[in-house]
C-alpha cells in the first residue's frame, strides 16, 4: 500500500447487489456513460474507468452485480477474484438503502474477507419516501466500516464517497472489519482448520480464518486452490 501512496494511485472496486445503482455510481465517479439497466445482470464483465481526485489517480473497477460471494456462478467468481487478486485499495459496496437487509449479506461477506470496505448507502431517497429511518452512524459502528449515504441518480454523495475512499486508502480511516461468530461448534472447527492452514502457502494470500470458513462452506473454488497446490 505504501508503494501505491507514493505513486498516488488508488484502485477502487465497485461491488453491489444487482440493481443497487452500481453502474450509476460508476458513471458519476468516472463520467462514463455505461449502460444502466433496471434489471439484474446488466454488468456481466468488469468495466474500468478512472478519475483524478485531490492529486490521486483513482482507477474505478465496476464488478458484476452479485448477491453473495459464493462460487456458484461466473459473475460471483469474477467479482470475488477481483476483490482478492486485484488487490484493490478500497472496495465500495453499493447498498440499496430501501432493501437494506438483503443487501447487507454481501457486505458481511466482504468484511469477512477482510476487504477494505466502504458501504455506499444508495437510494436514500427511496428509503425515505417509504418512511424508513436508517441510523447511519450506528450502522457504521456495528458493522465496523465507513458508511456513506447517497442518492446516485441525483449525483448526491459522490464527493463524500471519494473523500472517504481516499482516507481509507491513505490509512487515515481504519476498517475495523467484522469477526462474525458462527456458533461454538463451528468456531471450534474453524480454529482447528485455521491452525492447519496457517502453515499452508495459501494463507499468505488469503486470511486463514476466511479460508477455514470457505472450506466449511465447501467452496469449490477454494477447494480447487488447495488441490492445485
Amino acid at each position, binding site marked *: 500500500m505504501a508503494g501505491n501512496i507514493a505513486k498516488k494511485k488508488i484502485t477502487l472496486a465497485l461491488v453491489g447487489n444487482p440493481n443497487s445503482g452500481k453502474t450509476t455510481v460508476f458513471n458519476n465517479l468516472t463520467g462514463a456513460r455505461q449502460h444502466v439497466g*433496471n434489471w439484474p445482470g446488466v454488468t456481466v464483465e468488469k468495466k474500468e474507468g478512472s478519475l483524478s481526485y485531490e492529486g490521486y489517480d483513482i482507477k474505478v473497477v465496476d464488478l458484476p452485480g452479485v448477491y453473495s460471494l459464493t462460487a456458484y456462478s461466473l459473475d460471483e467468481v469474477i467479482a470475488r477474484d477481483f476483490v482478492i487478486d486485484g488487490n484493490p485499495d478500497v472496495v465500495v459496496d453499493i447498498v440499496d438503502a430501501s432493501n437494506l437487509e438483503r443487501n447487507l449479506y454481501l457486505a*458481511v461477506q466482504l468484511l469477512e474477507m477482510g476487504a477494505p470496505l466502504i458501504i455506499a448507502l444508495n437510494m436514500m431517497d427511496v428509503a425515505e419516501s417509504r418512511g424508513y429511518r436508517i441510523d447511519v452512524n450506528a450502522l457504521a459502528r456495528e458493522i465496523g466500516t465507513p458508511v456513506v449515504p447517497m442518492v446516485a441518480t441525483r449525483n448526491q454523495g459522490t464527493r463524500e464517497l471519494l473523500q472517504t475512499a481516499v482516507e481509507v486508502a491513505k490509512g487515515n480511516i481504519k476498517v475495523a472489519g467484522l469477526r462474525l461468530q458462527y456458533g461454538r461448534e463451528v468456531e471450534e472447527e474453524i480454529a482447528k*482448520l485455521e491452525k492447519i492452514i496457517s502453515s499452508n502457502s495459501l494463507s499468505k494470500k488469503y486470511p486463514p480464518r476466511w479460508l477455514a470458513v470457505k472450506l466449511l462452506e465447501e467452496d469449490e473454488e477454494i477447494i480447487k486452490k488447495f488441490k492445485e497446490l
Partner: protein
Amino acid sequence: MDREQVLRAKDESLAHLRKVYGDEAETVIADARYGFISGLIKDVLKKPTIDRLTLSDRIDKVVLNRWLGIPIFLAVLYGVFQFTFVASVPLMGWIDKFFGWLAGFAEGISPAWLSSLIADGIIGGVGSVLVFVPVIFLLYIVLSILEDSGYLARAAFVMDRLMHKIGLHGRSFVPLMLGFGCNVPAIMATRTIENPKDRLVTILINPLMSCGARLPIYALFAAAFFTAYQGLVVFSMYAIGIALAFIMAWIFRKRLVKGESGHFVMELPPYRLPTIAGVIMHVWERGRIFLVRAGTIIFGIVVFIWLLDYVGALEPIGRAVAPIFTPAGFGQWQAAVTLIFGILAKEVVVGTFGTLFAVEEGALGETIATQLGWTPLIAYAFMAMCLIYIPCMATIAVVKRETNSWKWTGFAIGYSLTLGWLVATLIYQIGRAFV
C-alpha cells in the same frame, strides 16, 4: 502431504458438524450471517409501523396477476410494435426521399460503372438499410422505457412459471428479452445463470429472439405485402420467435442437456420513472451499433455484392443454392443470394435486395413482388426464414466464446438452419392449401 491434511481435516470437521447440527455447515454459517444481519437491522432501521402498500405493489398486483400477467405482457409487446410502425412511417418517408434525391444525383456521374456503384450498389444497398433507422430507434426507445421502468423484469417474472414448464428458469428470460436488441450482449448476459445446463440452453435458443437487425427485413416486407396489418405481422414474427425458443428449449432440455434446472429467487426491482437522459443513452448505445455497422460491414458487403453482380458472378451462386428453397416458395436466385449474404449480418438481406434491384427504397418492396412474383404468403415464409435461419457471424462468434465448444456452436448453426427451412416450408405449403 500438506494439502491432503487440509482436505482431510475439512471432511472430518464437516462430518462432525453434520452430526451436531443435523445440517450442512454451509447452512449453519449462512444462518449465522443472516442472524447477525437481522440483529443489526433491528438496531439501525426504523420502518413505519404500518408498511403501506407502495405504488409498486399496487401495480404489481395487476401486472403479476396469475391470469392477467401473460396477456398483459403480450398486449404490451403488441402495443410496442404498433406504435413503432405507425410512428416511423413519416420519418422513413423523409429518409427515402433523401436517398432518392442522392441517387438522382449519382446517376449523372460518369463513367457508367462508377455511377452504378454509387447509385445501385452503395445508395441502393446501404440506403435501403438506413431507411429503417427510425423503426429501429423507435423500437429501442420503447424497449428502453419498458426496461428502465422495471416492467421488463416483471415480464421475466410473469414468464417464470411457463419457463419452469420447459425446464428453464424465469431468469433465463432476461437474456432472452435482451435479445430483442442484439443477441450478442444477450448471450453474454447468460453469465448470470448459475446452472451450466440452463445457461447452455439459454444460449442456444437466444438467436430465436428477433434482434434489431432483423427488423428492417420485416419492415420491408410488412410494408409491401401487408399494408394494413404491418404491426400485427411484425408482432407475429416476434411471437413465432418466442414460441420456437420455448419449444426448442423444452426439446433440448428433454433430449440433449438433461438434468435439474436451477432454483433462485426472482429479483423484482422497484418501478422507476425512466429519465430522458437514461433512455437516450440506451437508445444511442444500441442504435449506434446499427449505424456503425451500416457504415462499415454493410457498406463493405454491398460493395462486394455489387462487384459480384457487375461481373456476373452473383447469379450462378444464387442459382446453385436456390432450388433448396423452392419448397418454401422463394426458390429464386435473388432470394438465395440475400440469404447467403445475410449470414454476415441480417440487415444485409435488405441491403442485397436493394443492390440487386437498384430501385428507390420506397419501391423496393413492390419491385420484389412484381419481379419475383411473390405473394404475401411467400413474403411471410421468407420473413420466417430470416427470423430463424443461422445466427449472424457476430452471434456465432459469441456463442463459440461463451460455450467454449465448437460442437455446440456447430449445433446452434445446424439446428437453426434446419428449423428455419422447415418452418418456412410449412408456412408456404400449409398456406398454399388454404389460400
